[in-house]
């Protein structure tokens, strides 16, 4: 018959109230844990995907859209730029490497990216099976694409026009899988890479079947026969020198019909935009937790009133004042521990469930089997606040006078 045993017996004697207190606390913890997991993994993922690229040069329009479409591969591009027009930028002395990106088609929701071998180097990607693409209509697929669709070298795949899963297919122009990339933990795992000439080829000779203006279809590569020039969607630039960060974007924006956008800047802006909503939810969760702490306080205080004779009795049996305080504290801490454990389980479970759902749609993965850096602080703050809340009734228990209580009885 330990203090904890007795505390558990008191909690079990009021199952509904105990459950409600634990649930209130758990929901606050779960919301905060979920938001921490979501934001930390989103920030980490955005940073990892954006890190290899210093600057993106593409069509004028929204710089955020340009970055989202060509670096994170989650939005439709603004438009295209002429290949010839982009060449002076590629050859600029401040540019270490310029990787072309030609978008327009997809394979079962995965972007088909027309590019060259420098794309692999940009993300430090290695071919895990087979070889890198060399000729038109050859593709290498990212590890996630290969895993989800069980692709191996030698497989044939049919691309769809547009970036949505339901675009019209290029049935007459199958791609041949010649390689599968080793996992990198970056966006490249979810891409299908092919020489940029493949994209031109598909649109030059056959064009898409069906409606090319269907939703989700990007302003894709226009064949030379239709526009008279070769186009790409963007150039992914790596600087040769840090000073380029100050000069090159200005040069592009001021002296060409293209725009330059920085992935680091735009992803920070994106996080700021998302951050407003996240902060609101965080405040909401914090208020929920404060309410839960208050409810635990009220529960302990009223429980103390209800069982003041029990406490007096325990004193008559030889329990010391500190023992009674420990009993009250044990009751509160049990509620806290249960609330925190349940909250973390709910938060991580929700993150994992969302991650599984996002993975089905080919979006970036979110894992519940991870520990956000702020979670340790969250747990510490909840325990510190909770224990501070429990201390008041614990001190009341400590100060209770058994003789006067028993005399009143």
């Amino acid at each position, binding site marked *: *018959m*330990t203090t904890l*045993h*007795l505390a558990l*017996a*008191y909690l*079990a*004697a009021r199952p509904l109230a105990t459950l409600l207190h634990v649930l209130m606390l758990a929901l606050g913890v779960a919301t905060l844990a979920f938001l921490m997991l979501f934001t930390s993994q989103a920030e980490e993922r955005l940073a990892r995907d954006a890190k290899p690229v210093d600057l993106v040069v593409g069509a004028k329009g929204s710089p955020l859209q340009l970055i989202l479409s060509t670096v994170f591969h989650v939005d439709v591009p603004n438009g295209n730029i002429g290949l010839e027009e982009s060449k002076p930028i590629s050859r600029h002395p401040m540019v270490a490497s310029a990787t072309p990106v030609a978008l327009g088609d997809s394979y079962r929701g995965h972007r088909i990216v027309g590019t060259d071998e420098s794309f692999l180097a940009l993300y430090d990607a290695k071919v895990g099976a087979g070889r890198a693409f060399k000729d038109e209509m050859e593709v290498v697929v990212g590890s996630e694409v290969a895993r989800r669709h069980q692709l191996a070298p030698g497989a044939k795949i049919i691309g769809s026009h547009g970036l949505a899963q339901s675009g019209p297919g290029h049935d007459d122009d199958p791609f041949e899988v010649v390689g599968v990339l080793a996992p990198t933990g970056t966006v490249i795992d979810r891409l299908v890479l092919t020489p940029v000439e493949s994209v031109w080829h598909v649109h030059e000779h056959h064009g898409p079947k069906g409606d090319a203006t269907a939703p989700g279809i990007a302003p894709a590569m226009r064949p030379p026969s239709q526009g008279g020039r070769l186009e790409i969607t963007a150039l992914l630039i790596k600087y040769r020198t840090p000073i380029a960060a100050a000069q090159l974007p200005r040069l592009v924006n001021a002296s060409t019909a293209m725009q330059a956008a920085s992935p680091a800047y735009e992803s920070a802006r994106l996080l700021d935009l998302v951050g407003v909503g996240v902060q609101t939810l965080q405040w909401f969760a914090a208020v929920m937790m404060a309410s839960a702490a208050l409810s635990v306080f009220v529960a302990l205080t009223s429980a103390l009133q209800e069982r003041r*004779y*029990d406490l*007096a*009795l*325990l*004193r*008559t*049996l*030889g*329990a*010391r*004042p500190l*023992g009674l305080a420990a009993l009250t504290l044990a009751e509160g801490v049990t509620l806290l521990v249960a609330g925190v454990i349940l909250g973390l389980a709910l938060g991580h479970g929700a993150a994992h469930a969302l991650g599984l759902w996002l993975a089905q749609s080919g979006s970036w993965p979110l894992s519940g089997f991870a520990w956000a850096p702020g979670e340790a602080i969250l747990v510490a703050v909840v325990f510190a606040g909770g224990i501070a809340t429990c201390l008041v009734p614990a001190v009341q228990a400590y100060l209770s006078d*058994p*003789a006067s209580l*028993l*005399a009143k*009885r």
Partner: protein
Amino acid sequence: MTRALDRPEAVPGGAGPMLEIRGLRHQYDGRTVLSVPEWDVPRGEASLVLGPSGSGKSTLLNAIAGLATPTEGSIRIDGEAMTGLAPPARDALRARRIGLVLQTLHLIGVVTVRENLRLAQRLAGLPANDARIDEVLANLGIAELAGAKARNLSVGEAQRVAIARAVVNRPPLILADEPTSALDDANCEKALALLLAQAKATGATLVVATHDNRIRERFAQRLEL
């Protein structure tokens, strides 16, 4: 205010009284609510503290148990001074030497009868001894209640459990505060018989405080307040 009706004799063999009270006085708001100039209770005897409500009976028992600190005077239990001890030492002495039966038969309702008795063992610093618990419950005729939640007991059953808890550690001194005042005649007689029998069985000294004149004649040793 107080008169000792029967001056007890010390137990032959040289052992001192189980309970010694000297010059005990307790004031509340400047008013003296208890005064016991001298009272000794010999070992193994059953004594009665008799008086009307408000006469200080509970205050006296609380002072003997170390739950209240008297304004002046001394109390010695089994040769050890209760008065003057620091609170933790008083708690330890009470847990070790005193079994209490309270006026309201108060038990911890959310745990079982057995757990109530284990709690008494643990708070006295003794290891859990289920054999002893079973023995006491059997002696009191409530062996079948060991697993019952204390809050589900009848008044009579709770009375027996309270007695079981008071004697389970074989304390040398048992204090009972109004153990019969809420009971009808039949149950009063039963409860008292059990209390006396258990005290006798464990060789404990018994002090019963009551205003219940029905039990007056059962005690040779009496202190009237």
